[in-house]
């Protein structure tokens, strides 16, 4: 599998749509190619078929669990074992891209649309799961990062967490406000992206 093919198939992999041979080739390439890992990690734009997302805004409820289960199954391990960093990075990027796609659909739509509370909850659950896994990966990488770097990361995380708390409280008071829903998702996206970058600092070669 070439680098170009891998990047074009990233979202299909996440959804389990690749056949076993292609999925194995995808994993083998990603594990050996730091350029692809970096490209997946750096990409923030919607993946090619995100443009085709339904305007009914139904974010996939099983994105990250599906990736985690699939990786664990392929490696013959139970799902709770920490997934490899490339899978975490890929999942973070896919989640960000998909939620960005959802937000983009909302923002570019000429008709006012509400982001349903249920959809926000589903996105929050996914972000929370990815965030938890990335926090675990960051803890593993802590010994390879200087105390100053960890302090910087933690300071930035505190700023994001404060913003997340504030917007969540506002959303709880006004659950039908789509602008607040977008802000909650944006804060989660910032948090997951920061955790992904922080984890990469401790593991990139």
């Amino acid at each position, binding site marked *: 599998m070439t680098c170009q093919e891998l990047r074009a198939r990233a979202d299909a992999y996440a959804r389990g749509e690749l056949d076993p041979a292609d999925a194995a080739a995808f994993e083998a390439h990603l594990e050996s190619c730091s350029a692809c890992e970096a490209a997946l990690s750096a990409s923030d734009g919607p993946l090619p078929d995100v443009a085709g997302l339904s305007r009914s805004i139904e974010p996939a409820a099983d994105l990250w669990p599906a990736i985690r289960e699939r990786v664990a199954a392929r490696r013959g391990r139970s799902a709770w074992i920490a997934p490899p960093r490339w899978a975490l990075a890929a999942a973070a990027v896919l989640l960000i891209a998909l939620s960005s796609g959802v937000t983009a659909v909302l923002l570019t739509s000429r008709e006012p649309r509400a982001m349903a509370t249920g959809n926000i909850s589903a996105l929050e659950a996914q972000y929370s799961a990815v965030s938890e896994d990335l926090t675990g990966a960051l803890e593993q990488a802590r010994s390879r990062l200087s105390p100053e770097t960890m302090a910087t990361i933690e300071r930035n995380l505190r700023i994001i967490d404060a913003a997340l708390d504030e917007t969540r409280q506002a959303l709880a008071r006004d659950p039908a406000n789509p*602008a607040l829903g977008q802000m909650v998702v944006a804060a989660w996206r910032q948090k997951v992206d920061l955790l992904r970058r922080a984890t990469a600092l401790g593991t990139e070669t």
Partner: protein
Amino acid sequence: MRLHRCLPALLLVAPLAAQQKIERRIAIAPDASIRIHNLVGSIRIIGWDRDSIAVTGSVPPGAGSFYMGGAGRGAKLGIERQDEVKQGQPATLEVRVPRNARLWVKSASATVEASGLTGELECSSVDGSIRVEGSLRLVIAESMEGNINVAGAMSVARLKGGGGTITLRGARGDVLATTVGGAIVATDGAITRAHLETVSGTIAYDGTVSPRGTLDVATHSGDVTLRLPPDISAEFDLGSFDGSILYGLSGKGEGKGKSEEALKPFRGKPISFSTGAGEARIIVRSFKGEIRILKP
């Protein structure tokens, strides 16, 4: 007595003598992929019209050892250290590469400067500053705490900071810039598509937006100031949940401050309106920051 007089000079000469001077050159393809690694010190990259990489620099004692290898379509070079911490003796590298090369650069606290490039650059740092000038196809720059400064018309720029400031000058194509607490400042912009986002930093954009282009700005608590041409043809979509919105493009008053109008969003629900034919799209969202749309 003689030894006593010479001691300061000896102390000065000893470390200088141990400093490793670098001067290496290898042939490479004009669009080669090149990895450059120097955690502490500085990395200066200059694009040139030759099919080769030329490296000069210095490595003080304790800063690690220089390595370089590759040929044809790929090469890597840098300073190998025993530990991956960002403190330590600074090594300096000046690297000349083919303009159209694809570069991957890693720093921790080292400053990175790149100029004269037209290819692709991906650069990550912890708290070192990153400065890029030129017209590259793709720039990806990430620094957790350092400033990121990009000047020139990049086709695609993906810039991610933390506490440092992101500065864009003359941005044209597709730009994504995000920080946590750092400011985002863009001057002389004429973007096709931009997403500028920060949590608590401020955002200032001075320039225009292409017809059919999109400028999408978001903050949590930082203030947003957009300075746009008064005759811009755009559809505006402005929302601040708990901050004020000041719009100063359409008033008839003369002089700064006289033509500005305070818009009052209801519970953060966005206010939408068009100017001209509404060709470009300008979206601003803030939780509690002030939004100001002003003339240049």
